[in-house]
């Protein structure tokens, strides 16, 4: 077993993470449920890769995510940063042992717990009081789902996971509006790594020290605003301290971060932010996966989904599901190097994946994330082709029909049905999919396939985003269910998924745009953006270095592109 430590930086990253951990929590619960579906019982996925076992001072055992989450102060809503597990003593705030003089107490209006969180704490109380005999609380699931649909403000509003007290870190005292915290410069200015960074480093060290043999870091970073500066500094320190441990980075952004920019200055600032943020974050990780379409609801990836782009609660659910699938191979229990079990196959460590996608050939470290949610049924006739065809990118600015013979792929398929209505076995899946690849006209140079039987569970807190063609177990129905437009966790229990990381030249437009913007605004003599960049603290030389490393990336993917970017 090799441990994985997860880091989430930024509000939207925490939204994604919240869904991600809800999936894990659901899997743990389903595996322990005596009445549960057999497919969840034998997952052959090792949760210890993501979770740690601990113990409170009272000797109560705990099981919590190996996670450091960084967010804004006040971003936790009604949840305490210390969590509830380790809070044994009910603090009586009145006794202050350090001061005998007068006391002034300032109360912030207490945040009300929403129905979902209320029902969670009620459930816990009941379990404490009368064990098994839990009469279902007065709160109905239906109301909970409705409440979450209409009103999610904080990522904690829909989180059912207990976090370790060291996990949730809040950035203090930036005196900045969340709306204004929207570019690299402001993040750099209002947050000084030398002051708060050490605390964050310490939190991370706490989780790493426990690991017997860490396989890597999984960073989820909201890169659309000031948090990318925070993440940049954090990554720099991680790369320095844990130089041999690979970092897999997902840069996520919500569609709502794509607001229209009114004037030229804002557009330039946005373009530069994107370029700098990308250049900086990518320089401290081994694999960089941009996630986040400008409009998820209208994308092909959402064919069977009903998404509201304005709700981070919706979009983050899709991204989290994809991240979950991609991460499955990291915790498959390897049965020796050659034999596969019938439940899982294709175990990988982060490092294997990184080397496979970014370590050979062109050394391109920017990967495209594709997802099929839900993954289609394997039909005998079409073989796996329908599945390959249904994989659609969640990465923005990629070429649609790029033909790339040098592409490298790593795909995870899990919980898929075969035509008979049973779950396809792992070996069947592998055969079907390799056959499908054989049939393709343009094949990637290498495709690693990981497969598992266990589908994605849909927890109660999952948004109602499935279309009316999605069945109870995520099968695609031939006729739409009448009378409903979207289905959620009450109707759909699990979803078969396929997700793929693709290192291909289809990502060129993404990198090229950043390079062009950097060259146009950043390094050209007398650019109107120079004062802006100076206020962000970037000198010419630093920008030139960034430009150079971006052009190297472009060049690796497209040797013919030489100088084309210099001309404009």
């Amino acid at each position: 077993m090799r441990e994985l430590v997860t880091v989430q930086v930024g509000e939207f990253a925490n939204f994604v993470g919240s869904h991600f951990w809800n999936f894990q929590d659901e899997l743990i619960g389903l595996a322990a449920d005596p009445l549960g579906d057999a497919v969840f019982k034998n997952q052959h996925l090792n949760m210890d890769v993501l979770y740690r076992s601990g113990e409170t001072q009272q000797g109560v055992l705990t099981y919590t995510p190996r996670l450091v989450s960084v967010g804004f102060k006040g971003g936790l809503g009604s949840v305490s940063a210390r969590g509830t597990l380790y809070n044994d003593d009910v603090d009586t705030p009145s006794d202050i042992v350090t001061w005998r003089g007068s006391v002034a107490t300032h109360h912030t209006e207490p945040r009300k717990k929403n129905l979902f969180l209320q029902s969670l704490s009620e459930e816990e109380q009941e379990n404490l009081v009368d064990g098994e005999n839990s009469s279902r609380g007065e709160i109905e699931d239906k109301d909970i789902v409705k409440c979450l649909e209409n009103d999610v403000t904080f990522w904690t509003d829909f989180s059912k996971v207990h976090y370790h007290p060291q996990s949730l870190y809040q950035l203090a005292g930036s005196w900045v509006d969340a709306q204004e915290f929207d570019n690299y410069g402001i993040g750099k200015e209002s947050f000084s790594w030398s002051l708060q960074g050490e605390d964050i480093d310490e939190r991370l060290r706490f989780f790493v020290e426990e690991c017997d043999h860490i396989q890597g870091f999984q960073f989820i970073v909201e890169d659309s605003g000031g948090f990318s500066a925070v993440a940049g500094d954090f990554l720099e320190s991680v790369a320095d301290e844990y130089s041999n441990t690979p970092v897999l980075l997902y840069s996520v952004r919500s569609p709502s971060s794509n607001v229209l920019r009114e004037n030229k200055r804002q557009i330039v600032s946005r373009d530069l932010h994107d370029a700098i943020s990308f250049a900086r974050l990518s320089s401290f990780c081994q694999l960089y996966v941009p996630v986040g379409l400008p409009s998820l609801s209208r994308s092909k990836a959402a064919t069977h989904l009903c998404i509201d782009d304005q709700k981070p609660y919706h979009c983050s659910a899709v991204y989290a599901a994809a991240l979950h699938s991609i991460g499955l191979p990291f915790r498959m229990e390897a049965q020796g190097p050659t034999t596969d079990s019938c439940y899982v196959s294709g175990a990988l460590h982060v490092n294997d994946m990184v080397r496979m996608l970014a370590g050979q050939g062109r050394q391109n470290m920017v990967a495209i994330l594709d997802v099929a949610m839900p993954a289609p049924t394997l039909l005998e006739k079409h073989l796996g082709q329908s599945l390959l065809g249904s994989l659609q990118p969640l990465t923005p600015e990629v070429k649609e029909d790029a033909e790339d013979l040098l592409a490298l792929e790593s795909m995870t398929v899990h919980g898929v049905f075969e035509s008979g209505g049973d779950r396809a076995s792992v070996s069947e899946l592998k055969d079907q999919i390799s056959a499908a690849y054989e049939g393709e006209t343009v094949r990637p140079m290498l495709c690693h396939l990981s497969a598992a039987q266990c589908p994605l569970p849909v927890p109660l807190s999952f948004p109602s985003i499935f279309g009316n063609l999605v069945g109870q177990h995520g099968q695609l129905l031939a006729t739409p269910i009448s009378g409903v437009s979207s289905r959620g966790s009450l109707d759909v229990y699990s979803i078969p998924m396929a997700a793929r990381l693709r290192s291909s030249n289809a990502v060129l437009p993404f990198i090229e745009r950043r390079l062009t913007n950097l060259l146009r605004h950043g390094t050209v003599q007398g650019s109107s953006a120079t004062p802006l960049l100076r206020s962000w603290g970037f000198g010419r030389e630093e920008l030139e270095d960034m430009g150079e490393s971006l052009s190297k990336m472009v060049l690796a993917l497209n040797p013919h592109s030489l100088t084309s970017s210099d001309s404009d």
Partner: protein
Amino acid sequence: MSLRVLNPNAEVLNKSAALHMNINAAKGLQDVLKSNLGPKGTIKMLVGGAGDIKLTKDGNTLLKEMQIQNPTAIMIARTAVAQDDTSGDGTTSTVIFIGELMKQSERYIDEGMHPRVLVDGFEIAKRATLQFLEKFKTPIVVGDEPDTEILKMVARTTLRTKLYEALADQLTDIVVNAVLCIRKPEEAIDLFMVEIMHMRHKFDVDTRLVEGLVLDHGSRHPDMKRRAENCYILTSNVSLEYDKSEVNAGFFYSNAEQREAMVAAERRQVDERVKKIIELKNKVCAGTDKNFVVINQKGIDPPSLDLLAREGIIALRRAKRRNMERLVLACGGEAVNSVENLTPDCLGWAGLVYEHVLGEEKYTFVENVKNPHSCTILIKGPNDHTIAQIKDAVRDGLRAVKNTIEDESVVMGAGSFEVAARQYLVNEVKKTVQGRAQLGVEAFADALLVVPKTLAENSGLDTQDVLIALKGAHDRGNIVGLSQHTGEPIDPQMEGIFDNYSVKRQIINSGPVIASQLLLVDEVIRAGRNMRKPT
């Protein structure tokens, strides 16, 4: 005006409205922080939306906790926080001084005076006050053996404004001894060499100085000793885990056997490194009852731990980077980056190493070291907010001692400097100033009195009575401060109340600069948000 043409939505406040916005913001901030000042101030308990508690009497912490929106207030807050970053204290004083300067100015401006004239007066007064401070300060001789009494007095003065007396007095000795421990002749004091460690302990409030180091982790092997005496300490930064994960090694196996062979070979390399350490252990420990402890910054995986445990070696992995430096200063030896050429000279020494377990938290104490240049202040408290508050106080205490040693001087406290400086400005400086700038000097002088005034107010005394008594006693040729208990004038020197010279100088320096900037604002322009909204 051109901006209106460019952006019709931009909001513009004219001169007088802008000025009043600034004055009000400064006064507002002053009001919030005022009650913090001094040993009779009010502690603030902030309860967050989710029930999180923050306890503070420190202006700096309070400012950082506040959600300040007003741009003027942010500007003042930034200055005050910067004050804390550079000198470690004086945030509250800075804010109330700026607030008072603005308040005094308001009087004159309402009477029709131009801010420019006031600002000129401020500048003169500031320079005069700084000169006066040079005369007023009490030089102390630091040398090789600094006068611990005076250091303690300074530390006590600071700590008593943050913690109740008995606790403050206990911490006083601790912070002074901690700074003296890490102090090296001819070198700047690096407070990072004092580790501040905390333990959550339900019934215990206690703070002690550990001469040596406390690490917040323990060994990760069941067979390793939990307690050992007479220990050699190896401080290392060497990976003792099997790293097939050399990130950039682009290597692929063509078959399973090759893979196995690779794994075995790489494992062997790690084992070699462990063996080198074991060799050194045998060299120094064989035939004695001495023990061997490895404290490593990189990882140590279970097979390596096994090998070490079998030899009776205690090993800790993933030590803090900063602890590498501290360990060497505390125990001696050197931090090694490779196991080649290990010699006994690399090793440090500690008389006692033991582990303390609290739930899942483990602590390793490295104690009884020879001649330490690094130490740990260990804080025990029943909950996080208590620990956090004591920690803040300890930091301030350490800074105060460090400042004193570096300043080689102190300033008498309890408001005595402010009273003396005010009288000096009014009685002597003002006369030498031509024209209306005199009024600026006067405003500045009166603003200085905000410190004794606030101290009196926080003690529940009548501010007017106190000021009259103080001025009177001063004019009789004494240096007097305010007694927090009686309100009578006292001699701060007798009472042992001293402040940091550098903190005072910084306040006098930065306060008028910000106040002047705020006074000279002609227009406030803001595109977008409404400034007049209540904040």
